[in-house]
C-alpha cells in the first residue's frame, strides 16, 4: 500500500508541472504586452514608452520567457505568487482570506451534500421502483437541471426581499451561509445521491445479503452492512466532489457577493490581473489532482485489485 501511495504522488508531480507551464504559456500568449496590462490595471491614464520600459525592468519582464517561468514556478512553490497588478499587494495576501472563505462555503456545502445524498440514496434504494423512489428522483432531476444562478436569484428575491428573512449577500454571520449553501446543495445533492442509490441497490442483490437473511440476522444489521459497503464505493466519488464544488462556486459567489476565490478571480479577469488568475488556476489544479489522488488511494485501500494494477 505504501508503494502505491508513493507512486500516485510521484505521478501527480509532472501533471502539476504541465498545468502550471500551460497556464503561464497561455497568459503570455495573450496578444498584449504584459507591461501595458500592468500599467492599465494600475489605472495610469497615458502610457509612454519610457514608462513601459521602466515597468518591464521592475517586473523582470525583459527576461526570456523560460527564465520568467522558472522564476515564477520557484516562487510559487514557496507560495509566493508575486504581486497583484492592480493593487500591488502580494497575491497570497488576497488569495489567502478568499480561499478560506470559499473553503468554508465548500466544506459546509459538501457536508450537507454528503448527508443528504446518503439519506436520499438509502431511502430510494430501499423503496426501489415505488412512488417514493420515483418522486425523489423526478424532483431531484428537475432541481439539478435548474441553472444555479437563477435559483440563487429567485431565492434571494423570495427569502430576502419578499419575506425579509436573510441578508441578500455578503458573509456577515452564520445566516449568510443559509442561502448559498442551499443553492449549492440543491445543485449537487441530486447528482450524488444517485451514486449512493446505485451502489446500495447492487449491494442489496449480493450473496452476503441473502446469506445474512437466511441466517436470520435482524434486518437492521443487514442494512448497516449494506450501507457500509455502499459508502466505500461512494467515498471516492465524494472525494472528487470537494474540488468540483470548489471550482464551481464562481457563479454562486458572484450572485451572493461572497468574498471568496470565485469573486476575486472574476474581478481579476475583468481587470486582467494575471498573477491572481495564474495562482487561481494553479490552486484549483492542485486541489483537483490532490483530491483525485486521495480518492484513488482510498479506493485502493478498500480494493487490493486496484493497487496491484498500477
Amino acid at each position: 500500500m505504501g508503494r502505491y501511495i508513493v507512486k500516485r504522488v510521484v505521478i501527480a508531480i509532472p501533471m502539476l508541472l504541465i498545468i502550471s507551464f500551460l497556464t503561464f504559456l497561455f497568459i503570455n500568449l495573450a496578444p498584449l504586452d504584459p507591461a501595458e496590462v500592468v500599467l492599465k490595471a494600475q489605472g495610469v491614464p497615458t502610457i509612454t514608452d519610457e514608462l513601459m520600459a521602466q515597468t518591464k525592468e521592475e517586473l523582470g519582464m525583459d527576461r526570456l520567457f523560460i527564465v520568467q517561468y522558472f522564476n515564477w514556478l520557484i516562487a510559487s512553490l514557496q507560495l509566493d505568487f508575486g504581486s497583484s497588478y492592480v493593487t500591488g499587494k502580494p497575491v497570497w495576501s488576497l488569495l489567502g482570506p478568499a480561499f478560506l472563505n470559499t473553503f468554508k462555503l465548500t466544506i459546509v456545502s459538501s457536508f450537507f451534500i454528503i448527508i443528504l445524498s446518503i439519506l436520499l440514496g438509502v431511502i430510494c434504494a430501499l423503496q426501489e421502483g415505488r412512488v417514493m423512489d420515483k418522486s425523489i428522483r423526478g424532483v431531484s432531476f428537475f432541481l439539478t437541471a435548474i441553472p444555479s444562478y437563477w435559483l440563487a436569484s429567485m431565492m434571494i428575491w423570495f427569502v430576502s426581499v419578499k419575506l425579509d428573512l436573510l441578508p441578500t449577500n455578503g458573509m456577515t454571520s452564520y445566516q449568510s451561509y443559509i442561502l448559498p449553501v442551499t443553492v449549492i446543495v440543491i445543485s449537487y445533492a441530486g447528482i450524488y445521491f444517485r451514486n449512493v442509490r446505485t451502489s446500495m441497490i447492487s449491494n442489496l442483490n449480493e450473496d452476503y445479503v441473502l446469506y445474512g437473511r437466511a441466517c436470520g440476522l435482524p434486518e437492521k444489521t443487514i442494512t448497516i452492512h449494506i450501507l457500509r459497503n455502499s459508502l466505500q464505493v461512494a467515498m471516492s466519488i465524494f472525494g472528487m466532489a470537494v474540488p468540483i464544488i470548489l471550482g464551481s462556486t464562481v457563479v454562486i459567489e458572484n450572485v451572493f457577493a461572497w468574498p471568496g476565490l470565485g469573486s476575486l478571480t472574476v474581478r481579476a479577469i475583468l481587470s486582467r490581473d494575471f498573477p491572481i488568475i495564474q495562482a487561481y488556476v494553479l490552486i484549483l489544479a492542485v486541489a483537483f489532482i490532490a483530491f483525485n489522488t486521495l480518492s484513488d488511494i482510498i479506493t485502493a485501500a478498500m480494493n487490493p485489485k486496484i493497487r496491484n494494477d498500477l
Partner: protein
Amino acid sequence: MMFVSFIVLIGRVLIACAGGEESDADIEASTQAQEEIVYATAQDINDMNPHLYTGSMPAQGMIYESLVENTEEGIKPLLAESWEISDDGTVYTFHLREDVTFHDGEPFNAEAVKKNIEAVQANAETHAWIKLSTQIEDCRVVDEYTVELTLSEAYYPTLVELSMTRPYVFISPNDFIDGETKEGVSGFHGTGPYMLTDHKVDEYATFTAHDAYWGGEPAIETITSKVLPAGETTFLALQKGEVNFVFTDDRGVDTLDVEAIDQLVASGAYQLIRSDAMNTKMIVANSSQDESPVSERAVREAIWHAIDRETIAEEILDGSETVADTLFSSNIMYADVDLDVRSFDLEKATDILDEAGWLLEDGSNVRMKDGNTLTMTLYYDSHSSSQKTQAEFIQATLIEAGVQLEIVGEESTSIANRRSTGEYELLFNQTWGLAYDPQSTIAAFTSEASYLHTTSGIAEADTLYQKIEEVMVTTDEDMRQNLYGDILTIVHDEAVFIPISNGSLTVVAPAELEGVSFKQTQFELPFEHMSFK
C-alpha cells in the same frame, strides 16, 4: 466574463418573468429614518494612495482635496484661499487657508504642500499624461501659509489640472514613506470631509465624517462603500435596503440597467438623478489615410448625415445618453461655439456624395469613383455590447446611401494601438470628459498616441496645430475663447470627429435624500452636501 454578464442578464429576465408585476411593498428601502449612505460598487476602493492611480476616485474625492476647485463658474478656492499669477504666467503664488488640519491632526501648511508636490514630481514618468507635471520646475515655501509654484513656461490649464482628483491632492506628510509616496504610503489621511475609518478588502470600506472639517462637519455621518457584483445582486440589495445608493462608476459603467432603475424609482423608495453631459462618444475618422475614401471631407460629412442619432440614443442606449451634434456639449468650458448642426438626412448624404463624384452604377448598391468602391472599415470595442449594436445599425443605414461599411470588433488595447499607428479608417472613441475637456482632448489632436492621424490629413492641419499651441500658453481669456472657437470650427467643418451621443452620470438615491449634485468631473460626487429630509 461575457458569460457572467450574460448570466446576470438572463437572471434578470427570468426574475422579471417569474416575479411579474412587483408591488411597491416589495421594495423596502426602509421607511425608518436613514442616517447613512451605503453605495454599491463593483470594485474595491483599492490602494487609496492619492499620488497613484489604483484607488477608487469617488472614494479619494471624499478624503483628499486640491488647492483649487473646478466649478461651473470656473476655478474657485479650496485649500488655497486666493492666488496670484505672474504677468508672464510662469509663477503661481497660493495663499493657503489657515484653519485646515489633516485627519491625523497634522496642520496643513505650505510645507505640506511642498512635500506633496515634490512627491508627485518624483514619479514624473507615471504622471506624464498630465502636462502640468512636465512644466513644474520648483515649489517654494514663502511663509507658513504661502507657497510659490514655478513653471518652465506659461500653461493656462495649470489651475484646472491642479483641481483634478489626482495627483495634485494632499496627504499628511506623516503618511509618507522615506519622504516619498511613489512606493506606497503608511496611512490615508487627507484634509477632506470624510475619513477612511475601516476597510475590509473586497468587502466594504467605511468613511466617517471628519468633525474638524474646515468646511463644517458633513450632515451624513457615515458613508459605506460595499463591493457587490453589478446587476442582479446589487438590484436585490437595493430592494431590500441593504444598499441605498448607486452611481456610474469611475470607468463610466452603470451598475444597473435602465429597466432595474425604473423599477426602483416606480416603487417610490428611490429617485433617479442624471447629470449634465459629461463626455461625448464619437466615431473618429482618419483623415491621413490617403488611399482611403475617408480622407475626403465629403465622405466624412456624408457619414455624419447618415447616422440616426435619435434612434441610437433612444433605442440602442435606452435613453441613458443624449444626442450629440458637436464634439463637445455646450456646457463644456469654451465649447459654447456656434456650429452647424448636421442632422440625420439621408438625402443630404446622397447629394453630397453625388456632388463629390461618388456615383451609383446601375445594378450596384455601392458607390464608385475612378474605379474605387466606397468601402470603409469601422472598428469597435468587442467588449462593449452597445458599440457593436451601434456599428451594425450605422452599417445598415449607410448602405442605403451607397456606402459600404465593414465592421470589426477588437480588444480595447488593440483599438488604442490602431489609433496611435494610424492603421484605421473609422473607429469608436470618446472624449476625456468634463474637467479634462476641452484641453486634454484638444491637446491629444497633436499627440501621436491619440489623434494625430485623425487630424493631420485635413487641409488646415498646420493652422490647427499652431492654434492649439497658442491656446495652451496664452494668458488672455478672450484670445483663448477665440482660439478654442477656431479650433472647434476647423475640426467640425472637416468632420473628423463624428459625434454620436453624450454620456452623463446617473445616481440612484433614496427618495428622501436631498442635496445630490455633481462636480465638474465624472469621477467624484460631493457627498458632503447631501442630507436626509
